[in-house]
């Protein structure tokens, strides 16, 4: 049975978004909540997601609800790549955290893969810079970890 009702979502900055039931239940959290309460007129509060990010999440879910039956896998992948390509680091991280919070598995995988692609082949200093991660290691601790992982810092040696 496909539910036809609309679901109201409220972002952390109190903006209301209205989505189809099928779009909303792509989030495991919302799926569970709606399973208990059913469709109501009151908006579901999402305290950890701003309106800017929620709008993007909804874009993603709306595309994917229609994509599963009508669009080829290759085209879906291309759309996904376009979706994340021009995101700045801050937005990408916010989207990742929102996907994790809402339990949207494929969006979480997509954002994690994108972050991984941006980290690959970078030095630790660059990774900290890009993602604004505080270095909470003492110089001694960092040196110890580098020694333990020396193999990762070696240049490839030809036999």
């Amino acid at each position, binding site marked *: 049975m496909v539910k036809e009702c609309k679901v109201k979502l409220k972002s*952390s900055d109190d903006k209301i978004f209205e989505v189809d039931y099928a779009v909303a239940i792509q989030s495991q959290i919302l799926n569970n909540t709606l399973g208990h309460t059913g469709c109501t007129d009151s908006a579901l509060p999402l305290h950890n997601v*701003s309106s*800017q*990010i929620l709008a993007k999440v909804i874009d993603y879910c709306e595309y994917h609800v229609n994509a599963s039956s009508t669009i080829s896998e290759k085209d879906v992948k291309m759309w996904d790549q376009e979706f994340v390509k021009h995101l700045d680091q*801050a*937005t990408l*991280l*916010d989207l*990742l*955290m929102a996907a*994790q919070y809402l339990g949207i598995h494929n969006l*979480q995988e997509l954002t*994690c*893969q994108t*972050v*991984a*692609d941006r*980290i*690959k*082949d*970078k*030095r*630790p200093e660059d*990774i*900290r810079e890009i*993602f*604004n*991660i*505080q*270095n*909470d*290691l003492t110089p001694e601790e*960092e040196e110890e*970890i*580098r020694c333990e*992982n020396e*193999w*990762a*810092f070696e240049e*490839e*040696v030809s*036999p």
Partner: protein
Amino acid sequence: MESKVQKVAGNSHASHAIFGNNVDILEEILKHLDAKSVGIVSCVSKGCQQAAESEYVWKIICTHICPSSVFETERLQSRVATMGGFKRLYTNFLHPLRSYSHHKHCSSLNEDVIRLSLSLFSVDYYERRLESLRTRNASNFKIHSGITAIDQSPDSCTDIVQKSMKENRRACFI
């Protein structure tokens, strides 16, 4: 460091702080990386170091570079976990063999390299166990025999050591 954090607008400040320490999310990211990158990321922060030690991540890395599904069987996974874990298997055995093999530029290893790594990994495990048994026996020998060992002839010393080892072996495998 503080001024850099302040430059980030809105919610992002909070989510960056969470991200750097959120080991679960870091693991989900690291599982998409190759082994070398995970090694490098471990130096970024304490949270990254913890995530880079995760067996969950290393199991996936080892599975990806193996052409067949050998690492996907539960039996092998529990064996590897008992004998030291996937991270040790990769860094001490798969990686060095991979560097010296003809296929070092390939993303996957051939079956011979994998089999050899697993054999050496098992040998390494039993060597470490034997070493810890020897260390335990050596300290027990000192306790049991005390100063009198100095007065004993070499033959009697051997008897004492063998008796002590027998007792310990029985204790170890109970």
